[in-house]
C-alpha cells in the first residue's frame, strides 16, 4: 500500500474535528460526513469536502454502513477513519471498507470481531498470559453453581451472560445467598436479555479502572504509551481521566504496560487501541476488555508523551512501520481531562439538548480544548451529550489540577444545563486531588 491522500471521516463532533486536524497536519485531505442535524457543524466547515449521509437519527446516518461506504466512493476517498463509537468497532463495516478496496483506519476486521466478543477477548488475554478476572463459563444448574463458586471465591458477582453495560449483575456473599438468588437471576436474565444463562465472576473490591494505550503497526511491532486512570465514573460514564494513573507502584505500572503490549502482539493488533484493566488495592490487575479504536480520553496520553496518536493512526494505516521505539517514548508531567456534558446533575444527569447561546473557552499554558461545537450550535437530542473536553497538563498533579480549576473558572456555557458545576466541585475535592480513588467513589460521593 502506498500512502493515503484523502480520508473520509466517518464520525461527528469533537472526534471528527480531531481527525480532520490530524489529516491536514499530515498533508492529507479530509472529507466530512453529516446528517440533517449536522449540516452546519464545525467539522463540516473544516473539511475539504463534505457528504450528506442521511437523517438525524444515527441509525439512518452515522450508523448506516452503506451510506458511509457510498460517501467514501462519491468523495473518492482512499481511506476511512471511524473515530470512536458508532461503527468504529464494527467488524462488518471494516470488512466492507476493505472489500471496497479502501483502507480502514483501525484493526483488521477479524481482530475487531475477536475483541468485540467478551469470551473470545478473555481467552485471547489468557493465551497471551494476561490475567483475567477469575470466572466461569455460562452455567445453568444449581449443582454446577454450588461446585464452581468456591473455586472462584467470595464475594463474587452473578452475571447475566447476555447482559452488558453494567446491567444484569448481582453481588453475592456466600453459597447460601447464591443458591437463594439464582432462580430469580435466571428469570430476570431471560426477561431482560432473552437468555437465562448466567456465569460467576470474582468481585474485585475497591478496584480502579486503569487502561493502557498501545500502538501497533502492520509489521508485527507494538508499543505502549503508558496508562490512564479512568476511575471517576458514574454508571460507567467517565467524567474525569488522568494520566499517568496516580499512586501506582512502578512494578505494577510496568507489568500493566507489558501485559497490554503482549495482548496487542498476540492478537496481531494494528493501529491505536486501549487495553482496560481493573487494579485492586494490592496492585493485582485483571483484563476487562480491549477498545479497538481511538478513545475519547486519548489527549491526556498525547499531553504526557508528546505523541500525536491520530497522526500515528494515519501513518500505520498508510503501511509505514512504527516511527517510535519503546525506549524513545517518555512521559513528562500529569494531564487530566474533564468531560463537560450537556447533562443536568440536579436531575439525575438527564440529558439537556438545546441551543448553546454562549460559549467561552479557557486557554493558557498546558490547557487544550477539544470540541465539535461553536457558540450558537444546538446540542442535538440524537447523539451523545459531550459539549467539550478540557485537557489540562502540569509538571505534577498539583499543577495539573490547579490549571484544571483555572480552566473551569474561565469556561462558561449558557443555554443548556451542564456538568460544569459538578466538575468544579470535583477538581477541588480533597479525596480526588489526593488520589487515587476507586471506580465507585463518584457514585458514593453523589449519594
Amino acid at each position, binding site marked *: 500500500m502506498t500512502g493515503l491522500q484523502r480520508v473520509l471521516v466517518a464520525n461527528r463532533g469533537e472526534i471528527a474535528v480531531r481527525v480532520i486536524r490530524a489529516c491536514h497536519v499530515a498533508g492529507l485531505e479530509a472529507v466530512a460526513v453529516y446528517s440533517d442535524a449536522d449540516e452546519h457543524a464545525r467539522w463540516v466547515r473544516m473539511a475539504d469536502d463534505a457528504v450528506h449521509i442521511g437523517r438525524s437519527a444515527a441509525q439512518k446516518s452515522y450508523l448506516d454502513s452503506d451510506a458511509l461506504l457510498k460517501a467514501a466512493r462519491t468523495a473518492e476517498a482512499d481511506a476511512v477513519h471511524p473515530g470512536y463509537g458508532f461503527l468504529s468497532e464494527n467488524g462488518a463495516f471494516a470488512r466492507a471498507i476493505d472489500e471496497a478496496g479502501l483502507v480502514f483506519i483501525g484493526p483488521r476486521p477479524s481482530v475487531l470481531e475477536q475483541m468485540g466478543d467478551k469470551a473470545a477477548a478473555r481467552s485471547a488475554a489468557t493465551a497471551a498470559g494476561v490475567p483475567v478476572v477469575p470466572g466461569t463459563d455460562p452455567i445453568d444448574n444449581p449443582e454446577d453453581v454450588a461446585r464452581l463458586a468456591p473455586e472462584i471465591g467470595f464475594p463474587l458477582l452473578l452475571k447475566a451472560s447476555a447482559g452488558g453495560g453494567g446491567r444484569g449483575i448481582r453481588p453475592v456473599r456466600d453459597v447460601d445467598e447464591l443458591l437463594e438468588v439464582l432462580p430469580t437471576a435466571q428469570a430476570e436474565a431471560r426477561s431482560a436479555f432473552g437468555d437465562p444463562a448466567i456465569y460467576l465472576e470474582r468481585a474485585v473490591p475497591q478496584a480502579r479502572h486503569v487502561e493502557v494505550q498501545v500502538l501497533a503497526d502492520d509489521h508485527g511491532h507494538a508499543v505502549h504509551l503508558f496508562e490512564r486512570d479512568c476511575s471517576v465514573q458514574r454508571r460507567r460514564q467517565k467524567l474525569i481521566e488522568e494520566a499517568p494513573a496516580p499512586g501506582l507502584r512502578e512494578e505494577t505500572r510496568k507489568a500493566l504496560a507489558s501485559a497490554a503490549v503482549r495482548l496487542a502482539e498476540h492478537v496481531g493488533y494494528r493501529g491505536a487501541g486501549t487495553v482496560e484493566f481493573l487494579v485492586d488495592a494490592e496492585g493485582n490487575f485483571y483484563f476487562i476488555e480491549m477498545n479497538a479504536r481511538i478513545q475519547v480520553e486519548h489527549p491526556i496520553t498525547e499531553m504526557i508523551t508528546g505523541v500525536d496518536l491520530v497522526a500515528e493512526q494515519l501513518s500505520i494505516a498508510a503501511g509505514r512501520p512504527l516511527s517510535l521505539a519503546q525506549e524513545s517514548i517518555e512521559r513528562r508531567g500529569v494531564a487530566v481531562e474533564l468531560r463537560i456534558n450537556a447533562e443536568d446533575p440536579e436531575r439525575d444527569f438527564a440529558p439537556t*439538548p438545546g441551543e448553546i447561546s454562549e460559549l467561552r473557552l479557557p486557554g493558557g499554558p498546558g490547557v487544550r480544548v477539544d470540541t465539535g461545537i461553536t457558540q450558537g450550535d444546538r446540542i442535538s437530542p440524537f447523539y*451523545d451529550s459531550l459539549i467539550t473536553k478540557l485537557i489540562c497538563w502540569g509538571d505534577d498533579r498539583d499543577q495539573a489540577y490547579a490549571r484544571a480549576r483555572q480552566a473551569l473558572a474561565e469556561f462558561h456555557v449558557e443555554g443548556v444545563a451542564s456538568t460544569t458545576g459538578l466538575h468544579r466541585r470535583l477538581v477541588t475535592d480533597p479525596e480526588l486531588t489526593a488520589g487515587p480513588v476507586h471506580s465507585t467513589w463518584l457514585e458514593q460521593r453523589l449519594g
Partner: protein
Amino acid sequence: MSTVDAQMPGVFYRRPSPDADPFIEPGSVVQAGQTIGLIEVMKTFNEVKAERDCRVGRILLDDGDEVDVGQTMFEVDEA
C-alpha cells in the same frame, strides 16, 4: 379523541428492543401509566406512558422516526 404528544425531542421507538413486539397496536386498550413508546434522547431511553385509560387509534410515527417537542405520536379515544 385526544392525542399523546412528545414532551422531548429525540428518536421515537414503538418497541422495548429491536426484536421485541411493539408496546401497543392501533386498537389496543391501555391503562393509565402503561408504557406505550420510548423516546431516545442522547442515548437515554425515556418511557412514554398513557396518562389515562384509553383505546389507541392511529399511531403517527414509525419505529426510529425523529420526533420533536409537541409532535403528536398517538391518537387515543376514551376507553
